[in-house]
């Protein structure tokens, strides 16, 4: 068969080019140009120990921390090895029950009024590092109480950690929960 030779040879050559050379070149350039980002935007503590990634959310349920979005990852929330959403349908009774429970948990800790949707509905990635400024807002009073901080102090901290829309127009304003909570802990020390 006349086409067999080019088929085999081209497959091998393109496997080397696209599967080997290409990612290697990208890695090479990336490790020089954007070393931190290429390695996962990791956050280190004072000692230089890696304590997380600014892009990967962590689970918080203690009243003294800002709570992140609900996460539907398997085994435990914010499991980075099992990224994904709940995939629950909008009319699924199990889903509605879960949301009701989350609403209750938030209300039990003193939030009244409307509850921001992102605080009770699970994220797509299950690792969403952000919450909306509104979701941070409703938690300020609770944090202040739990930590014995003035609400204003917390509010300022939230404001400082609120990222605006990218380039002024893209996406939503958002608050990085892990960074904010680390800052809270730093404040406590």
């Amino acid at each position, binding site marked *: 068969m006349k*086409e067999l030779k080019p088929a085999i040879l081209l*497959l091998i050559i393109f496997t080397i080019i696209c*599967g080997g050379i290409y990612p290697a070149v990208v*890695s090479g350039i990336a490790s020089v140009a954007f070393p931190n980002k290429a390695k996962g935007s990791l956050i280190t503590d004072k000692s230089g120990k890696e304590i997380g990634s600014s892009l990967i959310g962590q689970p918080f349920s203690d009243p003294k921390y800002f709570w992140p979005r609900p996460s539907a990852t398997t085994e435990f929330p914010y499991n980075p090895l099992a990224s994904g959403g*709940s995939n629950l349908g909008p009319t699924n009774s199990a889903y509605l029950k879960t949301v009701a429970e989350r609403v209750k948990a938030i209300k039990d800790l003193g939030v009244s009024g409307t509850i921001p949707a992102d605080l009770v509905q699970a994220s797509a990635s299950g690792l969403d590092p952000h919450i909306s400024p509104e979701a941070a807002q409703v938690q300020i009073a609770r944090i202040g109480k739990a930590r014995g901080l003035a609400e204003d102090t917390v509010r300022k901290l939230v404001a400082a950690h609120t990222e605006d829309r990218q*380039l002024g127009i893209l996406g939503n304003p958002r608050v990085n929960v892990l960074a904010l909570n680390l800052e809270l802990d730093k404040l406590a020390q």
Partner: protein
Amino acid sequence: MNLYEWLETILFFIVLLAMVKPFGAFMARVYQGDKTFLSPVLVPCENLLYRVCGVERDEEMDWKRYAVGLLLFNLLGGVALFSILLLQHLLPLNPQKLPAFSWHLALNTATSFMSNTNWQNYAGESTTSYFTQMFGLAVQNFLSSATGMVVAIALIRGFVRKKTSAIGNFWVDLTRSTLYILLPLSLVFAIFLVSQGVIQNFSPYKTVPLVQPVTGTTTVKEVTIPMGPVASQEAIKELGTNGGGFFNANSAHPFENPTPLTNMVEIFLILLIPGALTQTFGRMAGNPRQGWALLAVMLAILIFAMGVLYWAESAGNPLVAKLGVHGINMEGKDTRFSLAGSSLFAVATTGTSCGAVNTMHDSLTPLGGLMPLSLILLSEVIFGGVGTGLYTMLAFVVIAVFIAGLMIGRTPEFLGKKIEVREMWLSMITVLTSGILVLVFSGIAMMVPSAVASMANPGTHGLSEVLYAFASMSNNNGSAFAGLNGNTVFYNLTGALCMSIGRFAPIVASLAMAGSLAGKKYVPPSLGTLPTDKAPFALWLALVILIVGALTFFPALALGPIAEQLMMIR
């Protein structure tokens, strides 16, 4: 939509429309063998490749030889990937010591990547080694996209050429697609993605302590963050409308899509080649207006779908509203993307056959979820996959031209080529294969108890999950109502069947049509010829696409998303 979302959306389409024309022209030059700015570097590489592989660069093929080469090449690629998956545990670059795939999952996955579907019945971070990702999956991401593109180009040649059997040289077209188009763009955009935070490394997974350990049934004090060469994969995954995520959460994962800007860039990459190919077509056919007319039809339907999706999601879920939570439906969406950014991604990824997601489609409101599902069910022509979108769209054009031609009392013709019995058969195959597969296999699934048991949601939504699964696989999309547990023998095998038939039947039909058209003589237009590059025909084409889709799937959709939406709002 708020002001920012309007700006974001409008700006996006301005950039896209500004880019398709020059890029389409560039692709036309590449496939015609004209000189481009990359030629000085790449022509020598190209020639070396041909010499090594025994390819005569000026030797043209008839459609049969072209198809044989294509099928053989894809088959070999599939077999290679299948072997890699089965032997994963023995191969290098596997820092997590991940085991081999089961045979049926390997079969499903190999077919999936070979067919440009990238349906994933596995979670990337916990099942695939770096070697598999790079040398298996990413390679197929390149080659399956190139395959789609060359078929479109061969079909364009069919329309343009006269009284010849030659439709091009498969090996040359394939090589040029990869070297001139896919690789350079992937390289540039991969580096851009890293600059925004997409990871690119070969390190083992990182273990970090939790600030607040998880207590409860199990105690978790530290977590493992997966690593890998993500950016290089991410770029081609979007550019080649492949859609297979490095991670399970796909483009919702912060390591794949860290910022609103990467989100927009990824959507741009998804739509770029399919959109620009309309211009390549217009240019090669010597009628740029024709390219714009096709693009206009695609754009109109895409924007309409986006509007409905946005509206449905922003209206939120009334059942959740009863719990005191108002506003948009945030289930399955990440915070950093605006609703416009999520909606646009959802319609772009399903209008094309990409299938990457930044939103969990399973958790969309029923009406919202109906949009991606419908876009897939329209046979992937709203931009469509790289190449596949154009050749499937051209099959729709042939059908639309045929009926319209009769209605004005002429033997139908398009671009000066008469549409006859053979073209009708072939375009019906191209257009209807996926629909037939969806109807047959979703019906079978409903009769198989284990298949029904795979549903994650009960009732209408479960039905939607199964319908979406077969729609996605048969149309080589790859996105999912991902609650459905697809990693079962039933779904792995039926899926592999759907993906391969849904991919290669239209490809062979399109190549046959290219051959048949190329052999015809050219009929110059006269006053009696229906102009196919103006608004009335474009409108008619859109109607044909929508009506064929609606008539085929309305009953099934009525039992799925439509019934669910009505139940939800009442």
